[in-house]
């Protein structure tokens, strides 16, 4: 069987490795000049690389942990010691807890309401949840306005949804919010560092895993091959790349194609015959995340009794976290600009972004010297990702896109973290989607039935 995989992110690479192991003839077409997609290493010093994109994992991410072990990669703990820093109501405070200085009862009410709505979602088929139509129509922001009126809950909610989903609550449906929180292991698991989805980082950087997978695939991976069209007939499928002086070939023939790119990019490919169901709609949004990495000679905030963890009510750096290497050979603070703040930040020039990030850092940590380096990774501006952490399903999207999320279009099959109902949006979801689609192709006869089986697992 000849298979072309479109996209050399974690989902596409997993698919390719699994298919090669089963004897398939595989070619991976990647638009960028690197593999990894939304997993990308940012050099901070001669020996330290920060995660520009996906970074964290926890014990529930069993397939990711197995893949890391298989490739001899380790994990580094994110355990924090020291006080948190908060910039709320224009006041800077430091406390031992991770809870911002907001009304705790109001926050508890908010989490109670979130738990209630998460419990309403059918994780194996969100579009068939009771009240799916109502929950799919309503934005998360409208839902909050009805459910929790306390101003402190209103302040906290966009920060929380920004942190967990890289989303502006006004741009996603309640169904998407509730599904995402359920899919990732629940509110508490997704939010937690220790004992949660941020327990570890991949030692040396998450991109190392993609590089290890790509190395196994060798010259099957073709970089700088952006795919623009996919034609199929009864006999085969032809994948067309954007003509390019560096690209020797622009046409690849196969028996099957796996499209392993985010939904907004898949929607941009021209399919002949046309898709029966869209991959994204006008309501589907880009994950709104910009990461700012600040380098210091050492994690000096620790000497001042601070963990480096902060939360601010206003951007750009809505939160910061200590991502220093385990040997403390450098200090790395990662600032997260998410949700509506990311859209505003992305519109600034690089100088303005840097100035705003440094000014915010001075307010958060006035004792720190200026960083030796400040790197901005703007996923909103990335042509070949169109957002990060993951695509955001807006009002109406789950009912429209959900039922055909994994349904093949003839010879075209789908992978990518946004096609995984388990750990949607995370590295774990990407791997599971790759494994699912590889199984679908190998046991080919009834792809639709196979995908239902996997989804119900």
């Amino acid at each position, binding site marked *: 069987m000849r298979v072309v995989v479109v996209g050399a992110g974690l989902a596409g690479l997993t698919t390719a490795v699994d298919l090669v192991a089963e004897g398939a003839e595989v070619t991976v077409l990647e638009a960028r000049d690197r593999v990894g997609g939304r997993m990308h290493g940012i050099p901070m010093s001669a020996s330290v690389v920060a995660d520009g994109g996906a970074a964290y994992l926890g014990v529930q991410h069993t397939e990711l942990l197995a893949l890391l072990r298989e490739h001899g990669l380790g994990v580094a703990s994110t355990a924090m010691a020291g006080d948190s820093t908060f910039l709320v109501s224009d006041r800077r405070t430091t406390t031992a807890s991770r809870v911002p200085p907001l009304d*705790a009862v109001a926050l*508890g009410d908010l989490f109670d309401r979130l738990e209630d709505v998460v419990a309403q979602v059918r994780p194996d088929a969100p579009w068939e949840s009771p009240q799916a139509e109502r929950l799919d129509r309503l934005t998360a922001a409208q839902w909050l306005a009805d459910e929790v009126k306390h101003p402190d809950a209103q302040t906290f909610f966009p920060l929380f949804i920004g942190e967990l989903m890289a989303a502006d609550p006004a741009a996603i449906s309640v169904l998407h919010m509730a599904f995402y929180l359920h899919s990732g292991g629940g509110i508490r698991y997704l939010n937690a560092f220790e004992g949660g989805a941020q327990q570890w980082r991949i030692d040396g950087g998450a991109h190392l895993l993609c590089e290890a997978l790509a190395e196994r695939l060798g010259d099957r991976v073709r970089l700088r091959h952006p795919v623009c069209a996919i034609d199929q007939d009864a006999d085969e499928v032809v994948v067309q790349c954007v003509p390019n002086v560096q690209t020797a070939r622009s046409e690849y023939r196969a028996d099957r194609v796996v499209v392993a790119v985010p939904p907004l990019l898949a929607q941009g490919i021209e399919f002949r015959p046309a898709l029966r169901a869209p991959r994204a709609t006008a309501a589907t949004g880009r994950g709104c995340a910009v990461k700012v990495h600040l380098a210091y000679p050492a994690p000096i905030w620790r000497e001042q009794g601070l963990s480096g963890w902060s939360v601010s009510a206003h951007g750009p750096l809505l939160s910061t976290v200590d991502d220093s290497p385990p040997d403390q050979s450098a200090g790395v603070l990662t600032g997260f600009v998410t949700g509506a703040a990311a859209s505003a930040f992305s519109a600034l020039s690089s100088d303005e972004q840097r100035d705003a990030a440094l000014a915010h850092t001075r307010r958060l940590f006035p004792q720190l010297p200026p960083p030796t380096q400040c790197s901005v990774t703007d996923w909103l501006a990335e042509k070949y990702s169109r957002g990060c952490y993951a695509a955001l399903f807006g009002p109406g999207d789950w009912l429209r896109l959900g039922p055909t999320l994994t349904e093949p279009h003839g010879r075209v099959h789908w992978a990518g973290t946004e096609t995984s109902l388990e750990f949607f949006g995370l590295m774990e979801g990407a791997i599971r989607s790759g494994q699912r689609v590889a199984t679908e192709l190998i046991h080919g006869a009834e792809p639709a039935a196979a995908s239902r089986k996997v989804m119900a697992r």
Partner: protein
Amino acid sequence: MSPDHIVHIFRRVLNTPEVNASSDFFELGGDSLLATRVLSAIARDFGTELSYDDFVENPSPEGLFAKVAVVVP
């Protein structure tokens, strides 16, 4: 209302039966997010709004009940 009522709140929020009146919430695996849910349940059931600092200083059902009793004699 008694400390037992807060024991039940702990059991529900922590999803474990292993709670008694002197159990430490954080030793049972509770974290700050779950602590706020205990505080919202106490506010609903006792009509008393405790702060997060109150919780951290008294992280057991009997400790929190004493705090509730002080606020509302």
